[in-house]
């Protein structure tokens, strides 16, 4: 079981990193989601893998460590919220720029060339 869980975490991490390197916002979000799945499983496994054990001391010979379960719960909620924020920002960026590339070479690269200079910069 250890080998299975370890390789599963490894594959999820690899998939996540590959997708994050795609430089487009949708694969980026998918990649971050895979990475958070991997880290959640990893956190869960840090309390050692146990089968058929309750997270209560004293009721049986073996018990599952309850703390990583609480940590995973927190991590899931946070990564869910963060992914939602990133999704909203990616949609906003897509709508404003017309594409979902993530490169950002120059502050005014997106400004149409026919506009007067003073509109190229996001003048507050």
């Amino acid at each position, binding site marked *: 079981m250890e080998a299975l869980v370890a390789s599963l975490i490894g594959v999820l991490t690899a998939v996540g990193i590959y997708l*994050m390197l795609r430089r487009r*916002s949708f694969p*980026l979000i998918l990649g*971050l989601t895979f*990475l*958070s799945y*991997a*880290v959640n499983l*990893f*956190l869960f*496994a*840090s*309390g*050692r893998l146990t089968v058929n054990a309750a997270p209560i001391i004293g009721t049986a010979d073996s018990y599952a460590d309850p*703390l*990583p379960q609480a*940590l995973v719960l*927190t*991590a899931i909620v*946070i*990564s869910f*919220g*963060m*992914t939602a*924020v*990133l999704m909203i*920002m*990616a949609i*906003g*960026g897509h709508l*404003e*720029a017309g594409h979902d590339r*993530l490169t*950002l070479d120059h*502050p*005014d690269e*997106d400004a149409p060339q026919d506009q007067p*200079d*003073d509109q*190229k*910069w*996001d*003048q*507050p």
Partner: protein
Amino acid sequence: MMGHWIIAPVVLPALVAGVMVVAMRGDLILQRVTSVAAILALNAIAVALLWAATVNGPEAYFLGDWPAPFGIVLVLDRLSALMLVLLSGLALAVVLYAIGSGWDGKGAHFHALLQFLLMGIAGAFLTGDAFNLFVFFEVLLIASYGLMVHGGGGARTRAGIQYVAFNLVGSSLFLFALALVYGVTGTLNMADLAAKLPDLPAGDVALLRVAVVMLIAVFAIKGALVPLQFWLPGTYANAPGVVAAMFAVMTKVGAYATLRFGTLVFPPDLLATGDLVASLILPAALVTLALGAVGTLGATTLPRLAAFAGISSMGTAFLAVAAFTPETTAVALYYILHSTLATALLFLVADLVSRRRSQALMDAASPPIADAGLIGALFLASAVAMAGLPPLSGFIGKLLVLDTFRDQAALVWPVVLVASFLMLVGFARAGSRLFWSPTASQSEPAPPEPEPLAFCAAFGLLATLIALTLLAGPVTDWLSATSAQLYVGQDYIAANRLGQEE
């Protein structure tokens, strides 16, 4: 004994932010008054906590009265109190500037997000639990995402996506590291870790060292250390100027966490890790320092210049952190204070200039800006502070840093001195371009709205820098005692009352 006041810097902004979102939506005046009042109260609490920490030594606050290490603890000691004072003082300047310049009206919920940011940073400074540190990192990050894209705009939103993505990767790395630490020690309470790690079985040392490297990587992302600094120039240059000024303290969270973990949890005399932390940070800090200075030469806009100057000053701060001795840590703390205030001042000046120029690029011809004399003086002062020229605190800070590296002078001194010179050239070039170059048209600039409050905020930061210079003696004495406390972990551990039932 401060009792429940220890958690006030976390609870107060959280409550104020919640009330603002629910009850003050759309009423900007009420939001402004509440925000300033809350930040003034935060200042008072932080100063009181600083006094208490100076007099009493470390004190723990047990949330829900659960005994450590099973519950979450907040620990107030001299370092966390100092960072709280720095945070609340900077927040006061930032909120006054935001009101004076009208930035807070350019989008919804500026003040609420600022309060949430304060809550997250204050919590990160106070917490005595590694997982809780992760949670507060996320709180401050999610508020910073909102602030970063405040005011909107295409370039800003796309820079924001990069910032969020980079930090999400950092958060995942943090969780991997925490899981490893929990896997080998069975605890995440910092004091409990410090007590347990010396007895770590030899078989787990390799796992722990991996976790340490990952933790340092996370803190390096926060502190913008090379090679993990890529997010900073784009983020800070595209964020609203006032938000970038507030972010100047966020990079210091990385430096704070490195100091806390490097002195309490993984001290240099811990056999399992040894000088691993220092050996990772020292070269990275030197490269950061140099790269930031070169960046100031190549920057095309003033906010980018400020961002690279900020990176360079983080390099100097981490350089002093990396030595990990009581004397050098006092220097690092002095430089962190200076660097936060000076970077924030520079971003405010950059914002003052940017809003008065029609052109973003410094080389582009533009009519002379309004209030050029006053802003030019502020720019000169912030440039002097950032580059480390006398008479401001940057000079004292860099002198102290050079002094601590006497034994490695051949390596460190040339980097620090040449980097300071390059920054000087960068600032001189920017200043002469912006304030002295021939004008494109002779037309008089349109007189902008008077912004007395914005100038008050900028001059307030400058006055604090001057005070830091004039009071350098007493301040470094106090910081020496602070850093001595960091290297005597027993008080911090004892404050957690490990294994003692109430």
